[in-house]
């Protein structure tokens, strides 16, 4: 089963990668942003499986993005692959540090403290005149081992890089979900104290998850910064985090792939909705979120499992 899912995922990935030369540039850019943001969502899915929601995931997203932008600004370093890794590492280290504090909290306290931490970064960036204050500043054009593409070629290169990082991240997160620590997520969500009686430190498991989510957030932010070509403090604002949480709830925590599909759907719907009816965009978002919570509490991914159940047991009533 699981191996089959991996093959399907790999095939979809190859199709997505092969399609790039035939797609218009704006579609490639849109997909790149979507798949970069999907990494942040994947991190939130890791937390969501233990019942934790971070309303401050934009913190890592913004750190990853600013790490890339500052390397370009300070020392003129532009190698895309090294920068993406750097974004992930810096965000991961931050997460490891504040994880000591954050891992003690549950439920809404976790959500609120992460929110506050991201707002601290926002507050600092807004007041830092040398980094362009609320306007932010632009990111240098990335290069790939000395190769410096432009225009459509650059978009495609970033798209492929994003897909590659996505594939690696999906693989590792999939492995993590099937490890002992990953499998303990549902028991922790149900009853933490019983898990502790098994001799497992729940705090350290949650700390690990915070770090995983932080690294993924940083990678996503780094890729997004290079694709957009600009960073600004709004990347750390709580509404950015809210958008990521939205996609997480929509996608559900059942499947790794759901994060990527959910993120793609979100970006596509957003670009059309903002174009066609900008004054109703948030309302659409809110209504979809509400309907998902009320009628599909396990997310869109649960549709697949329902379908699968129906296919596997023909003849039985659904």
């Amino acid at each position: 089963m699981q191996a089959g899912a991996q093959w399907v995922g790999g095939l979809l990935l190859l199709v997505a990668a092969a399609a790039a030369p035939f797609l218009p540039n704006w579609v490639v850019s849109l997909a790149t942003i979507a798949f970069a943001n999907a990494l942040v969502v994947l991190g939130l899915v890791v937390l969501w499986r233990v019942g934790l929601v971070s309303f401050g995931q934009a913190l890592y997203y913004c750190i990853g993005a600013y790490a890339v932008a500052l390397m370009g600004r300070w020392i003129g370093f532009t190698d895309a692959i090294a920068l993406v890794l750097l974004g992930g590492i810096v965000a991961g280290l931050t997460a490891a540090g504040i994880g000591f504090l954050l891992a003690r909290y549950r439920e809404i306290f976790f959500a609120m403290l992460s929110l506050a931490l991201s707002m601290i970064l926002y507050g600092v960036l807004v007041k830092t005149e040398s980094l362009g204050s609320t306007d932010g500043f632009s990111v240098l054009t990335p290069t790939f081992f000395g190769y410096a593409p432009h225009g459509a070629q650059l978009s495609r290169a970033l798209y492929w890089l994003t897909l590659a990082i996505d594939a690696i991240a999906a693989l590792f997160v999939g492995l993590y979900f099937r490890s002992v620590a990953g499998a303990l997520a549902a028991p922790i969500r149900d009853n933490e104290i019983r898990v502790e009686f098994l001799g497992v430190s729940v705090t350290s498991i949650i700390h690990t998850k915070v770090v995983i989510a932080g690294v993924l957030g940083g990678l996503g932010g780094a890729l997004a910064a290079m694709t957009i070509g600009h960073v600004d403090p709004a990347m750390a604002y709580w509404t950015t985090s809210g958008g990521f949480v939205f996609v997480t709830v929509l996608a559900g925590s059942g499947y790794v792939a759901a994060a990527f599909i959910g993120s793609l759907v979100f970006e596509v719907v957003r670009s059309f909705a903002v174009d066609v009816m900008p004054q109703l965009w948030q309302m659409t978002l809110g209504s979809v979120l509400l309907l998902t919570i009320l009628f599909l509490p396990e997310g869109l991914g649960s549709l697949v499992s329902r379908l699968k159940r129906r296919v596997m047991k023909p003849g039985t009533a659904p």
Partner: protein
Amino acid sequence: MLTASAILTDGLVYAAYLFIVAVGLTLIFGVMKILNVTHGSFYAFGAYGAATAVGIYTNGDWNAALGFVFMLGLAMAIGLIMGIILERGLLRLVYGKDEVVIVLVTYATFLILEDVIGLIWGTQSYGAYQPMISAGNIEIGELVLSNYDIVLVVIAAAVAFAAYWSLKYTRYGRLLTTVIYDRETAAAFGINVTLVYTVTFLIGAALGALGGAVMAPKISVTLGIGVEVIVLAFAVVAIGGMGSIEGALVGALIVGICRAAAVHLMPQIELFVVYGVMALVLVARPYGLFVRAQPRKI
């Protein structure tokens, strides 16, 4: 010396505003265990309602005091109507779900209401500064204070006193305290918890709208004002301890004074200081200053 007194007065005024906004949030959390993101919408609707009211009474050439009361009344009426629609129409359906899921429900409602504001009042911003101007200024030594700010502090003090007194000495307040302490036991003793929930939510909603109304003359009423206020109110409530009224008061004072000090002494850390203080308090006391220790249940 002037700076010190300016910090103190500015801090007090800012704390008054924060308290009015945060007290509704903490009340709803204390009773219903709902972290209500929609509180930002109540604030915004209150501010827009107040701006509309100011428009009506300046056109109608009313007495300023009457106009001010009308402004607060209209805003709170809007808050009550929204509160009853939300609680009866939506939140009722999700009671008993995870606290985090309910946060997401209120977040979704907040997003919807943000656009509803745009549909009702349009995208232009409103000025509602007339009450502020007609209140005039007062000079105490070298310090120039707006009378309006003094009224703001008085209103906050009145709200704090009313909350304290009604929780302690009225029948409804005692019932509320019971529900805050243990919902299930309260229900077992025959308290109508559903009714207590509805009434609490209405009071909270009206207080959120009141916060928007009193601030409307001091700010430019424009789209997105609810977004910032909701995180500020969260910070205040988290510092004081979620669900605690005296915690909201102390939290508002801490945040208000710290922010005023930052504005006067180091303007570049103004935004940072609020959340920095919050993080510091939470490191020392994970669940805020005024919160009972919760037993772990197996």
